[in-house]
């Protein structure tokens, strides 16, 4: 509605007054986002590999080629990929299920919705305490946390060392992440479902379409922008994941991802150039997904 009127009068005249008021923010973004990214980039091309040897000379891609040969880096990278896949698929599915259960309206909806969403309001350093206990690796008679539940329910075959095993660590680590983000995805899908006019379903029902077909052929296609948004949000959060893992496993090797490794390289080894190179890699991975998305959003905005 508001968009329609915006279409008629896109600019309300006197264009430069507005510019003057956002100028401070433009400068702030130019310096602290783009300028500092450039600065980090410059760092990553330098020889500043220790705190005390202030050698800022140009090193080209040396830090990046070093990273490729660094088993710790490739380990963190593959961990991040595993985490991302499990986290994105898991959150997508559980968020979608939550929204499907709620979208038609049900008594107590508000109550369920708020419970599913509260994890977003709590710091992961705090929630990490609970999750660390829930995912305690002890099994059998010493079992605690989730393993204890499995034990009591007679499902002891499900007991596992969670995030401490080399193979399954990232799958286990994705659980708290899914737990945290599902409610957000639910809210996005719920808003999507509720934006589809009810007449569409009614019409399909009158035509004798089954509920399954209504979702498959009518509702889901309408939700494709929501799917895209969810993918972008989950993807960029996953690439940056830091405090969720730090809160549970600290700097542990088996759950190391790029952000954790970068932190270690900077603080423990004081290798600024290498840390900057890792940061740039995280940034590039996010940018290749987010920039096309922003351009697409920008275009659809302007078309309005």
């Amino acid at each position, binding site marked *: 509605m*508001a968009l329609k009127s915006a279409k008629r009068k896109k600019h309300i005249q006197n264009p430069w007054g507005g510019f003057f008021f*956002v100028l401070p923010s*433009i400068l702030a*973004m130019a310096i602290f986002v783009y300028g500092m990214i450039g600065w980090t980039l410059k760092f990553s091309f330098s020889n500043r590999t220790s705190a005390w040897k202030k050698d800022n000379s140009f090193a080209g891609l040396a830090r990046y080629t070093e990273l490729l040969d660094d088993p710790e880096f490739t380990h963190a990278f593959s961990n991040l990929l595993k985490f991302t896949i499990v986290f994105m698929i898991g959150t997508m599915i559980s968020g979608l299920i939550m929204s499907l259960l709620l979208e038609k309206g049900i008594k107590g909806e508000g109550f*369920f919705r708020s419970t599913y969403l509260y994890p977003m309001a709590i*710091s992961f350093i705090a929630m990490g*305490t609970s999750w660390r206990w829930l995912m305690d690796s002890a099994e059998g008679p010493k079992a605690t946390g989730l393993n204890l539940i499995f034990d009591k329910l007679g499902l002891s075959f499900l007991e596992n060392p969670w995030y401490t095993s080399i193979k399954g660590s990232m799958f286990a680590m994705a659980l708290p992440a899914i737990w945290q983000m599902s409610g957000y995805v639910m809210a996005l899908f719920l808003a999507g479902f509720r934006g589809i006019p009810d007449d569409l379903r009614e019409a399909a029902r009158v035509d004798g379409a089954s509920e399954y077909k209504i979702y498959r052929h009518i509702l889901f296609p309408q939700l494709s922008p929501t799917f895209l948004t969810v993918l972008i949000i989950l993807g960029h959060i996953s690439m940056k994941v830091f405090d969720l893992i*730090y809160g549970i496993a600290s700097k542990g090797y088996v759950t190391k991802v790029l952000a954790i490794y970068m932190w270690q390289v900077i603080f423990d080894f004081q290798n600024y150039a290498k840390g*900057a190179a890792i940061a740039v890699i995280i940034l590039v991975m*996010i940018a290749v997904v987010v920039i096309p998305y922003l351009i697409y959003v920008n275009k659809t905005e302007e078309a309005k």
Partner: protein
Amino acid sequence: MSSDLASRASESKDISRNKKKLDGKGQFWLVFRYISLSILFVIAALPIYIMVINSVKGVTGVNQSAAFLPPTSLNFGAWGPTWKILREPMFRTLGFVLQSSIISAIIGSINGYVFAKWRFRGSTVIFTTFLFGMFIPYQAIMIPLTQFNKWAGIGGTIYVLVFAHVIYGIPICTLIFRNYYQAIPNELIEAARVDGAGMVRIFRTIILPLSIPGFVVVLIWQFTSAWNDFLFAIFLTGGSPKLSVATTALNFITGSGNQVYYGNNMTASLIVSIPTLLVYMFLGRYFLRGLLSGSLKG
């Protein structure tokens, strides 16, 4: 646009229409939905439940195998000593978080007003370049930022955090306010212009009085994210105990080595979570609005 999005997601659907007699199949699905919702409820609530019940079992009274069960008697023994450690960092956090959220909200409302109602040539492109700042990993600016803080003379003070949250909060605050102001009809502004009001006056007399919900959304958003932030806190304060804030102090308590004191750790985690949980409980609707505004499209 996003405010529609939020109300769509946060208003319960009118189900009175569906109250036709349910046939057997309909009843089955209703029961099925409630059972599934309840299972999900248990999963969602489990971690906070664990935290709450184990915080009233004393410092060492947490019996690992009974940790799922509610306490037989209430023991607040862990609260006193934990609060003693957390009190100073908590108040420090509160102080800086309030400052940064208020400044962020003011900047956001000015920017949002311009981007929604006073577009200039190139404003959409500039706005899009702002938005990119929302997605960047802060690791990519952290090293220069610490150097800048030193250079600007705020290194080693709490203002490093105020500054970081204000600056890197600009994109999201601008976006939330822009979406919010876009829903205000242009006719309102046109009418004021005809009466001779300028940009600033329209902002003061028409837009600001309508902005209270927008401010609540942004304040809550910035409050929650700054309170829960760990990355900036640990990077920019360098772990200095003089500057410890809620999350870094908590990490100090629960970090490796202390993991056996579950009663203590759970209590500390709960204390740190209480402020944001309270905000969520009472103003959850606005929190959701902020979340959905950050999603650009829907």
